[in-house]
């Protein structure tokens, strides 16, 4: 089977510290306003009143997400200029020369992975630190994490180890694009909870 690089993210131990986000910003000199990796703070549940006390039925976890280098990337399909391509190791990359900044890819991507760089006028996204991978190293976010919750490897190998869950709120069904990401859900995670992203101003992607 052809190699497909993938991320594994252990949401059950992520503290939301955003070291992954900042490591990525530093490596790629991203200005304020562009975050290739975002950390979403998700919370659900309620506060209940019982015997004069407030009881917490609150659940919360974080999702750290960059680009999932999908196996069937909707951004690549839709780009009129063929500016997005997939390498033979599964990385989905942007050829900036061809990009005309129409943002059609950003409209489509259900993982919010595409970002317009206003100073160059080109779309940008996580490259999985392709240059590091070529040297046999790991992406910057992975080696940065103080809680060691990010892992990087071949999708099939990671799937063997960890399963193939990726549809944790707020992430969509994997059927749209077949993302190369595996997530271990937080122990408080379950479907059908009133989940909400509570740090929206920190993560919102235009």
């Amino acid at each position, binding site marked *: 089977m052809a190699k497909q690089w993938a991320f594994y993210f252990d949401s059950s131990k992520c503290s939301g510290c955003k070291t992954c986000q*900042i490591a990525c910003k530093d490596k790629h000199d991203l200005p304020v306003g562009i975050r290739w990796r975002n950390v979403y703070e998700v919370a659900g549940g309620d*506060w209940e009143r019982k015997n004069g006390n407030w009881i917490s039925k609150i659940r919360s976890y974080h999702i750290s997400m960059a680009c999932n280098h999908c196996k069937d990337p909707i951004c690549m399909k839709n780009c009129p200029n063929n500016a997005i391509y997939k390498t033979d190791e599964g990385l989905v990359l942007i050829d900036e020369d061809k990009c005309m900044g129409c943002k059609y890819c950003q409209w489509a991507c259900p993982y919010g992975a595409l970002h317009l760089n206003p100073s160059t006028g080109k779309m940008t996204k996580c490259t999985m630190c392709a240059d590091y991978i070529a040297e046999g190293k790991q992406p910057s976010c992975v080696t940065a994490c*103080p809680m060691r919750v990010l892992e990087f490897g071949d999708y099939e190998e990671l799937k063997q180890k960890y399963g193939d869950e990726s549809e944790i709120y707020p992430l969509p069904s994997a059927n749209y694009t077949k993302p190369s990401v595996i997530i271990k859900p937080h122990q408080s995670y379950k479907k059908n909870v009133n989940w909400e992203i*509570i740090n929206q101003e920190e993560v919102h992607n235009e």
Partner: protein
Amino acid sequence: MKHKNQKPDSPSESITAPPSRREFLKLCTFLGGGVLLSGGLLSCLEGNKEIPVEVLEQKGDITIVRAGCPAHNCGGRCVLKLHIKNNKIIRIETDDRDNDTLEDPQLRACIRGRSYRRRQYHPDRLKYPMKRIGKRGEGKFEPISWDEALDLLANQIKRVRDKYGNSSILVPYGTGSYNQLNGRQTAARLMNLIGGSLGFYNSYSWACISKATPYVYGTSVTGNQRQDWVNSKYIIMWGWNPAEMRDGTNSDFFIKKARENGAKVICIDPRMSMSAVALADEWVPIRPGTDVSMMSAMAYTIIKNNLHDKNFIKKCCIGFDRSQMPDGCENEENYSDYILGTVDGIPKTPEWAEKICGVPSETIERIAIEYATQKPSVLYQGYGMQRRAYGEQVVIAGCALPAITGNVGISGGWAGGIALQANDGGPFWNVFPTGSNPVKARIPVFLWTEAILRGKEMGFEDGVRGVDQLDSNLKLIWSVASNILINQHADTNRSAKILKDTSLVEFIAVQDQFMTPSAKFADLVLPVCTQLEMWGLEDGWKYGDEVIIMPKVHEPPYQTKSDYQICAELAERFGVKEQFTQNRNEREWIEWAVGRYKNTRFPNIPNLDKLEQKNTGVYSKPVDKPAIAFENFRRNPNKYPLKTPSGKIELFSKTLFDMGKPETIPAIPKYIQEWESPFGVEAKKHPLQALGHHYMARVHSTHDGIDWLDEAFPQRAFINPLDAQKRGIQNGEEILVYNDRGKIRIPCRITPKIMPGVVNIPQGAWWSPDKEGVDRRGNINVLTSHRWTPLAYGNAQHTIMVEVEKI
């Protein structure tokens, strides 16, 4: 503040000029010529010996230098991998040593270290010495030369010293820099050579916990090495948030490992903190300031269910019951008396505690039983709950629970208290010698504003030690690496009023890297270089078994100098230069510091040259067999007695008893209602409790406004949806948070991850009052009080009642 609204320029376009190519070539020529400098030459040639180019790692035109992350007062000491090209740091990565094991884990930097380029090259860094024009506090300055500046400071120190005496001079508490040669210790050393300055004891971080722990254990070294946590079955993180503030690099990682090894983790905290999300199986929200009630109820449950370790108590403790009280105190209220209510008629049942702390009695009972039976168990005390009114009580109560359950001196247990690392006390933090202070007078660190107002009247009851009474009010403040004056000290508005009065403190000098709120109140501002622009060294933060070197990477830009160099030049004006410098330059001092570690904690540490050559940045000693505090004592309490009066763990302290203040300094740990609490009359006007937690985006007030950090964690007032709804407040809109001491107006963040009745404004944001005096950035100290705790004379800065309003 200008730099907070800075447009995002790319990091490669900075105004702070690194040394020109010509200067760098000059440096290399000197090296190539093999010119050695005698240590006494601390002129502009200073630093030429610094980077022997041949030993550094090269990757094409990029030089890799591994250095310690600049030591501010975060909770970590980590390794940065700096990529340097054309004399500029273009990339920052972290520890990349091959091994990342429990015994010797990588020291991975957090966002504060990873974003350091944004601080290092920040256009707002101070560049020149400046003298005040306009009124004090206005923040208006004009540049002057170094000669003029240092002459001014020296003359002022001499004048005040001659007129009022050395004890009228204060070099305030400051933890802004800790790399040996940047930091207040350099100024302290100088002052100690020229007659001294007003001493102080305690800290803003740990006043109560450092004071109270020895009353129970006779020492502050009560913590096992952290690798031992994996042996625990049950860990209570009580008001402890290592995933955010760090508390020793990797503490959160070790708790994660413990959990992987089967430990159950409980977080007891008014907020569902980052640590609660990442590490806990259960979050127990608790009303701030009521922890002792829950701890007492836990003790009640444990005793009533016969789950206490009777053998251990008999062998190793005193004060638990009548049978083991100190002489003369047999009839006094002992620990069990209080818990069971035999003397005051109030059994500290879970139902009693529930009304106070808001935790359901079933939960208190269950956690008590779990803690006592799922052994060995850890009860880790965070520092927030002791930075409050009567904070001493929660410390002692938090030590009593491990004692009565026999969790002391065993692997997987935890004795509690301040928990400096066994067996040798852990990291030194600072080895740069300050010498001894000729001034014997010491005040509690938090009472410096009192010393300004009425120093001459302060005596023993005000915490003065070393002398009976201070002989002067404070007249001169020389603040180095500190943002205490305005920002971190309590009651900002009151502090500002005191400092503005030039007849009180006659001269204020502030030595810093940025125009902080404290710097705005200076009469003289001295610009300091960053820790990447000088030689330095750091070891662990509270915990850890490593030494991290910090090679000089840049020349100090513009006219900045290191704290050490400023003090050395000042020393010259007092004729003590040689005593101050010992004829060592900066690098030689670091060599000397490495030698100190060699003679104490790390006999095998290579010398500085070798460390630099290896370029791993860090020398670490793997911890295969974690030291256990009180192991010997537990085995044989008679052979290895504690340094307490009884030689044992004191659940009842005769020393405290003899102080004769049972209402505020009881001999046994008691719940005492705070002087500003939801249960007092003050709650009618100000019904909400306010917290100021240690935010991920800052280290206290360091890093405030750094753009990447502000983007990741904007300064907000966090409020529960129920409290917001009651006031018609929408998410993101500006709200007013206020009490009688001041007003804050900032955008809010509605979050369910905080208890109803509690609001949180992360501490450290720089005071930014508008025309009406309302702070617009969210400096929590606008709301805090100068009132101090009874025993430790500590800051009760988390005891705050406020009201919140929609604007």
